[in-house]
């Protein structure tokens, strides 16, 4: 897979590893395995600044199952679990 091809591909943030850098492409709460209703999950993510176009970087991972993750969103750091991060499509 070429770098250019990869850059165009959307992946859920939840599968990415520490050190990943990119942008938010879309919030797709309906595909995430979260415990709260998709519409509510979407609003909570938006309220924490996960909006399309925001710069993203995974800074830290937890010990067990590399979960949760700490993500830099523009100039703030947010901790969340991978299952909710599946709703954030990044590239």
């Amino acid at each position, binding site marked *: 897979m070429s770098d250019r091809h990869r850059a165009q591909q959307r992946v859920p943030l939840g599968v990415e590893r520490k050190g990943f850098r990119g942008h938010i492409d879309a*919030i797709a709460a309906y595909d995430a395995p*979260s*415990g*709260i209703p998709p*519409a509510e*999950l*979407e*609003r*909570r*993510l*938006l*309220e*924490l*600044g996960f*909006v*399309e*176009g925001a710069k993203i970087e995974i*800074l*830290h*991972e*937890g*010990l*067990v*199952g*590399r*979960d*949760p993750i*700490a993500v830099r*969103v*523009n*100039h*703030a*750091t*947010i*901790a*969340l*679990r991978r*299952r*909710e991060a599946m709703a954030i499509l990044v590239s």
Partner: protein
Amino acid sequence: MSAATGSNILHFALVGTPNSGKTALFNAITGSRQKVANYPGVTVERKAGIIQTPSGHRVNLTDLPGTYSLRGRSPDEEITRDIVLGRLASEAPPDLLLCVADATNLRIALRLVIELKQVGCPLMLVLNMIDIARHRGIDIDLKKLSQELGIPVVTSAAVRRGGTEDLMRRMDEIIANFKRGENASTWKPPTSTELRAAQREADRIIRAAVSQPARPDTRTGKIDAVLLHPVAGLLILLCVLFVMFQAVFAWAKPVMDLISVGFDWLGVQTHDLLPEGLLQSFIQNGVISGVGNVIVFLPQILILFLFILLLEDLGYMARAAFLMDRVMGGAGLHGRAFIPLLSSFACAIPGIMATRVIDNRRDRLTTILVAPLMTCSARIPVYTLIISAFIPNKTVWNWFGLQGLVMFGLYAAGIVSALAVAFVANHFFWRESATPPFMLELPDYKVPRVRSVAIGVYTRAVMFLKRAGTTIFSMMVLIWFLASFPRPPEGATAPAIDYSLAAILGRWLEPVLAPVGFNWHIDVALIPGMAAREVAVAALGTVYAIEGGKEAAAQIGQMLASQWSLATALALLAWYIFAPQCASTLAVIKRETGSWKWMALTFGYMLSLAYIASFITFHVAVALGAG
């Protein structure tokens, strides 16, 4: 000025996201003139204080619970929403909203400002921590920001001397220009489309008014590389907790000894002053030694709260939640439950009240259920007394004090059993509902402000002393009464307490508690211990002091060591890990969950665990020759 002359006092409210430094700002402005209470009917903390602006207006400033939006997803956030919208009958609607934002991190806060503008109430943006933002080279064009948002903007640095002067001056300007006839609220819960639009607008304003430094600040990132390291981070967290407990045990000792000596002296003085008889016994054994035995633990409580508040202000608490999320998640607890559970080490009551930060009911109830298993400071007196009387004060492995190690073990037992109970509850009560999310902002590290921490510790000290002065004191009088009446008959040979109500109650409980190694003295002390765990120590003192004469009161520990077997002492320690020995905790559980069922469940499971644990401990200890 019409508003100011109309009602004489103005109502301003601080609104802001969590971590905006709102409480530090509130502490800086109101100082010790703040009052902490609850909103009627709910257990959300109400913090308010009267301040005076430079030109003499009196303002009632309220610190509202932190929130990301007005949607109200938890009881705390609902209070913020209702006050902001003027819906809460018991509170005057605010004349001015002060939206506090962390100047180094404006994105989320500006989205909240845009939402707050719909409320119609006069609004001012306070850029807090402006000193840090400037230091980092973040350049904010205040005029542009104010123009784009359409509201006044002022800067503040809560932690600097004089850092709130601008804010106070601007309040005066706003008061001078107050116009009655506010705009009606057009606020309704935002949809995801509206949230997106608001955040885009906020981002646009930031691009227009804020210029970021070429080289961003990396200090927090560097610290986190170590403190959030998957392995090193957890080890450091364990070390922090270990130091905390050693400090509570060791640093407080000299002060506690001093308080102890002071009360003993007072007791002796009273003894010599008063004539022999009931009044003398009441003052010396009931009042002075009773209250003294409780107040002696004030230093430990202060040290514990000092640690908790320092870690909170430092920004470490959120990191601890991050590190513990999967560890706790394995047991079915939310990472956010870490903070309430850590507070429960001081006292389960603030801990249970702190569960309000958990917006999901299921997570919240599980946390409330296990919070009383965390070793609260009221158990410290009981543990300290028994450990110092029965565990030799020697060093093991060249470094650790054996007494401190036993203490650590008791704490560990509480934590492990809390996790186990949460695990069981999760698989028993909540099988069908899905796991709620964990999402938390990790604020930048900040040097805690001495004054702010001091105010926090002071508030706790007052709360503890009030409790010592009321509930605990009245229980001490009750236990003295139980132990003193009825008086022994003429010519009685046995000690006076053998004829008392306490002995009757104790003997009544004896057959039930004998299998776990308790004698009737312990049974008697457990009864008033229901009011507050630490009372049990004072009660034991009273029971033995009255039985053995006045000089015994000074050395409860020595007395116990001579009267109890090691097995009994260990069984009592095991009992105290689990026992629901605190009526106030049970009352708070009832209030917070709104149900008798949860209270009864907590009481029942804890009592069963306590009985089983002390039964096993006693019999294992006896089998090993400690009987």
